């Protein structure tokens, strides 16, 4: 393999069906056009499924990609995120010629895994096929092995995190893995690392489970070179200095995203009571002041000066002795306000349990919130719920539902497919409050009082996603950041960092960095091309009915509601600005041409 500036030049391909391990060259052209992370992952996914529209996400053809970015493994602040890219097992268009039609899925995780993959000599890990029995991947520089993981199948992520490192015999291996939810093919299972960080959304863990891949371990000793060390070192110094400012780091170090629990509630933007409301009158019981009483320490991702994660221990409650991180904004809202739970130890227990089973807590909070509402409205009875009295705010019932979902036991089997399938089964108008787009549940942000977020959810390529961007420029920028592997908290929290990314990339990869400006848009359009080929159209770019029909009733923003006209106008403007067909939503020929997405390689 020939390395080139900023890249090892090698993609590690592992086919679990045949056991074949192959190192293939990364083309400098793909690196220049798609950079890394989400973008390069999308390109590799496209190449793999080019001739296989409608491929079964849980079949051997669907590749599962672990993609660091070009900053990974260099000390650029807060840029160690690893994007997991695959074809989603959790989305579906309203109509399609393909039985297994679904969107692209991407989810990125912080920590140390991506940098280590680069130290070991790889710009990406592509897993295809399906193992016959549970396995894990062992990657130690050039040594790559598929090893038996049978004894770990069924193990929760917390226990496995420890057992895995013990088996590996060196705490400096970096690992990621699935829990029982992924093994059991819960559609919204996630991938976890360090027992706390997740590639949470879009069912990445479900795809991993279908491959019978319990975990991946990596350790490396090398590092790619850079194009221009002088530019890089100077940019690095500037970047580090830009973070050396309490106005930038104080909030993250002191509160992390937990600050959002009260902040977004006050703005009427929180997901409360299955998104019926935007303000949680008991938000303060889970907020920073309440939560920090059990926090022990902050911990950071690779070379991150923000350290937004808080490790804590519950000391007084039936859950005394529970050690876990959080609550963060998403976890604390989806298993707190969205379920009307304000008992902090109870929320912590639910978060721990969700992470331990390896569930996407955002989707699981939606599923339980939906069922609580259906139960309250008497659309389902206690028998439907296997005897669980699933009332608002009920911690024990919530914990039992989480368990049933992860193990797909009783009602948990249907619930493991998400709110859309639950509403299909329950009927009786329940689709109006099944909070999903394209089958993928909404994150912890309401949009009655935040119209651009409605467009953000409707157009996101993995189904509802709060990190999609609220306008075209924002979407393109986020697609770029996800391709670089830069943390969004860092670029939004430090206004000086965004403008430095180009300089850092120029130091790392040299001249091709000059085209960085169009990469985000190219990635976004290729994702759309993938989705439209699967059969997704404008009819799928929508938001749940609730936002149009039920104004908020609680808090300062009571009365806020979206109108259909407002939403349609916003969407018309969006497609026009994108230069996409307003009905099929397929990017127009001129747009594809301008982005270089033409020729045999991209023919649909």
């Amino acid at each position, binding site marked *: 393999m020939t390395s080139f500036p900023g890249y090892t030049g090698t993609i590690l391909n592992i086919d679990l069906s045949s056991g074949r391990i192959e190192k293939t060259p990364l083309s400098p052209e793909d690196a220049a056009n798609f950079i890394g992370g989400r973008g390069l992952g999308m390109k590799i996914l496209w190449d793999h499924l080019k001739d296989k529209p409608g491929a079964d996400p849980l079949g051997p053809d669907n590749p599962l990609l672990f993609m660091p970015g070009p900053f990974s*493994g*260099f*000390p650029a602040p807060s840029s160690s995120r690893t994007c997991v890219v695959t074809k989603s097992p959790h989305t579906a268009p309203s109509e399609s010629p393909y039985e297994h039609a679904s969107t692209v899925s991407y989810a990125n995780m912080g920590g*140390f895994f991506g940098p280590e993959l680069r*130290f070991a000599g790889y710009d990406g890990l592509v897993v295809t096929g399906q193992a016959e029995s549970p396995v894990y991947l062992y990657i130690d520089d050039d040594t790559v092995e598929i090893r038996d993981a049978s004894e770990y199948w069924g193990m929760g992520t*917390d226990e496995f*995190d*420890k057992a895995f*490192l013990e088996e590996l015999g060196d*705490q*400096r291996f970096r690992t990621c893995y699935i829990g029982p939810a992924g093994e059991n093919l819960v559609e919204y299972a996630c991938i976890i690392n*360090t*027992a*706390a960080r997740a590639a949470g959304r879009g069912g990445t863990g479900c795809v991993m489970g279908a491959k019978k891949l319990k975990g991946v371990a990596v350790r*490396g*000793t*090398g*590092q790619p*070179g*850079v194009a221009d*060390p*002088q530019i*890089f*070192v100077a940019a690095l110094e500037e970047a*580090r*200095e830009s*973070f*050396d*400012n*309490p106005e930038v*780091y104080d909030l993250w170090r002191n509160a992390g995203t937990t600050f959002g629990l009260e902040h977004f509630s006050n703005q009427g933007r929180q997901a409360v009571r299955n998104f019926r409301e935007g303000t949680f009158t008991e938000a303060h019981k889970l907020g920073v002041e309440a939560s920090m009483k059990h926090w*022990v*320490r*902050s*911990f*950071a*991702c*690779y*070379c*991150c*000066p923000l*350290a937004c994660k808080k*490790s804590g*221990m519950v000391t007084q409650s039936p859950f005394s*002795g529970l*050690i876990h*991180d959080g609550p963060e904004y998403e976890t604390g809202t989806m298993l707190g306000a969205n379920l009307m739970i304000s008992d902090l130890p109870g929320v912590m227990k639910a978060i721990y349990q969700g992470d331990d089973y390896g569930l996407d807590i955002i989707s699981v909070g939606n599923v339980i919130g939906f069922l609580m509402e259906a139960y309250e409205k008497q659309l389902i009875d206690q028998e439907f719920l296997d005897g669980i009295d699933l009332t608002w705010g009920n911690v024990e019932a919530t914990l039992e539902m989480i368990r049933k979902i992860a193990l797909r036991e009783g009602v948990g089997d249907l619930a493991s497919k998400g709110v859309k399938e639950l509403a299909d089964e329950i009927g009786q108008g329940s689709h109006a409050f099944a909070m999903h787009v394209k089958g993928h549940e909404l994150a912890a942000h309401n949009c009655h009082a935040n119209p651009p977020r409605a467009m953000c959810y409707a157009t996101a390529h993995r189904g509802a996603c709060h990190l999609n961007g609220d306008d075209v420029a924002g979407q393109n920028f986020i697609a770029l950041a996800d391709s670089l592997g830069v943390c969004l908290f860092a670029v939004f929290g430090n206004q000086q960092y965004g403008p430095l990314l180009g300089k850092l990339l120029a130091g790392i990869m040299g001249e091709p960095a000059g085209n960085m400006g169009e990469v985000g848009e190219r990635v976004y359009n290729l994702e759309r091309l993938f989705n439209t080929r699967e059969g997704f159209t404008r009819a799928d770019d929508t938001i749940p009915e609730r936002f149009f029909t039920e104004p908020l009733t609680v808090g300062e923003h009571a009365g806020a509601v979206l109108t259909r006209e407002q939403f349609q106008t916003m969407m018309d403007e969006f497609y026009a600005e994108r230069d996409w067909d307003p009905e099929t939503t397929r990017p127009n020929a001129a747009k594809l041409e301008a982005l270089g997405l033409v020729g045999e390689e991209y023919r649909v």
Partner: protein
Amino acid sequence: MAHKETLQTHQPGLSRRAFMKTVAVGGGILVLGQGWDVFSVARAQEGGAEYTMILVDYSKCTGCRTCETACSSYNHPQEVGGERMPGLGNPYLSNIKLYPYNPDADVAAVCAMCPDNPCIEACPVEPDPATGYRALYRHPETGAVTSDPERCIGCESCADVCRVGVITPNPENSRPERMCTLCDGDPQCVAMCPFGALTHVTVDTSRDLYALKPDQVAEQLIGQWYGGVE
């Protein structure tokens, strides 16, 4: 960086007192330049027996590994167009190493600068008659444990007895590596730590958690922080 702190700020009084003593002794030592004075004075104070080291405040450390990249950049510089500049910070080459644990604890492990020199005592190479040094010796200015690649026989005895487990034999020639150099008097891990978790201090073997292996430190931290809950 906001947390860039010098040795002097951590040892108020020491430099002035030591300075006076040094001047009284003969005054010449200070002209060694580039930070050498601080080592010399620290040892002069206790008759040559004191060393300095990197002290980790585990309660401030977040496990971000910036220290590893700073150490590596300084101690493994690169040459670009004939000019020496900081390396790209490959953490594998770092002399300070971060070990993560579950429940959450991060332990940065670095040479403890043991005053009784177990690693040097273990070196079987005969002392050089001219210098009195074995193949492993204390650097005359910094006190850092230093390997003499010309004389080292690669027996790994030093690594075997290292209390912290820092000394790592090179995979190819078995010569000892990863001993802290103190970066010529301005330790870069201390300078670059975003959280102010590292300081450059005089060795005091009675300090809590002194010269323990990362696993031992982690066990104690987890006990303190999480009440020993596993």
